[in-house]
């Protein structure tokens, strides 16, 4: 931006363990926009701009939240984890693997948000019932799969963790 519209926000975000300086941001920029367009982390997707689809789910201080509803400049001093940061070595996580293996991915647009939400679920609730799985991801809209293979992916990851895998 330039001229009268120039953003003048300066702040520092901690994303996936790395500090990022954000300069010249416009005041209303969402965390989703900043992650995608300023920090080079396009894995987090946006599909509704109002917290009604879950595609932009990230972890903020351990809580799963919609990045589109977080004003980026207010996210300072928080630990933010995106889909890119769930694994530190580049290898897929257990949940990422079961999503592929169980057929939980079609177009894949809702997938990153779901992956984050499911990690959050299984970290909090290691042995969720089917109903708890459904409720935990009821904020993540998937238009392709009808959810059946996604439920299966979550069950597979749950069972593998419970079996100590």
């Amino acid at each position, binding site marked *: 931006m330039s001229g009268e519209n120039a953003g003048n926000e300066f702040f520092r975000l901690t994303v996936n363990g790395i500090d990022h300086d954000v300069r010249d941001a416009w*005041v209303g920029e969402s965390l989703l926009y900043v992650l995608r367009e300023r920090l080079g982390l396009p894995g987090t997707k946006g599909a509704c701009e109002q*917290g009604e689809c879950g595609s932009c789910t990230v972890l903020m201080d351990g809580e*799963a939240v919609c990045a589109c*509803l*977080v004003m980026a400049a*207010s996210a300072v001093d928080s630990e933010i984890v995106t889909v890119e940061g769930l694994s530190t070595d580049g290898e897929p996580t257990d949940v990422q693997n079961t999503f592929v293996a169980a057929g939980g991915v079609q177009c894949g647009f809702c997938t990153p948000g779901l992956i984050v939400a499911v990690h959050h679920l299984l970290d909090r609730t290691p042995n969720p019932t089917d109903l708890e799985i459904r*409720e935990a991801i009821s904020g*993540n809209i998937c238009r392709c799969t009808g959810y059946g293979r996604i439920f299966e992916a979550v069950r597979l990851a749950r069972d593998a963790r419970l079996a100590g895998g």
Partner: protein
Amino acid sequence: MTVINARSVDEALTALRDHPRARLLQGGTDLMVEVNLQRTSVQDVIALRQVSELRRWHVDEQSRAVRIGAGVPYAELERNPLALHLPALAQAARTVGSPQIRAAGSLGGNLGTCSPAGDGLPVLSAMDAVVHLRSATDSRDVSIHDFMLGVKRSARRPDELIVAVTLPLLDGFQGYAKVGTRNAMVISVASACLIHDASEGSIRLAYGAVAPTVVRARNAERWLAANAPLRGRPVFDRALASEFGRRAAEECAPIDDHRSTARYRRHAVAVLAERLLLQASGYGASREHTT
């Protein structure tokens, strides 16, 4: 144009004094929607995310009340131990948006936005909650009934911050129900909260999404008090509950919109009132609910 990340209530109030047109940002679930959809031109924003005072709650056994910080997220309200103290509030909290929204949204946000469809507001109304407001210079307590003025209009002055609400600890049934056309993550078409105060001997009923503000069905409440004993563990039969619902529905002023019709909303609140009263019937006598 700037974002001020307040670290304490005092910091927030000072900022609010210095930037009287600033918008307050709690969970972001309302304000950021406006921003994202360009419905609002944001100038200054005072972010409250890091004000830990607003995220605390405590039970005062002496005054039999729970004081809940305006920023306590719904995710905390829906869980124990708070859910044990305030079951209707927990039920309402669990109907809010999605888990992601509940991790961010709070009663302070519901009050600040003051939409009649705010899921927490019928509970506050039915429980005669008190809203605690502070400015840089003073503080005041406002009854929930005086706080909500109209659609997205409240008694909060621009220099004031909603810091907490206080709800009474009551014995008796508490229930909340919300009608939406989807099984999760849906804006209320109509909602109702019924609170039984067993020691005082009163039943209170509040509605959401059927009038410009959340409303109390005071005539129906009075009618019920005149027609049934309400102390202890009252039992209500279906005919009484049905009449209660019918009377209660007369006290709302719903509209037709893209989410539903006035006629349906009026019908729905009657059904909700009837069902909630039947759930309250004999509550606590056994695990079985008489429905």
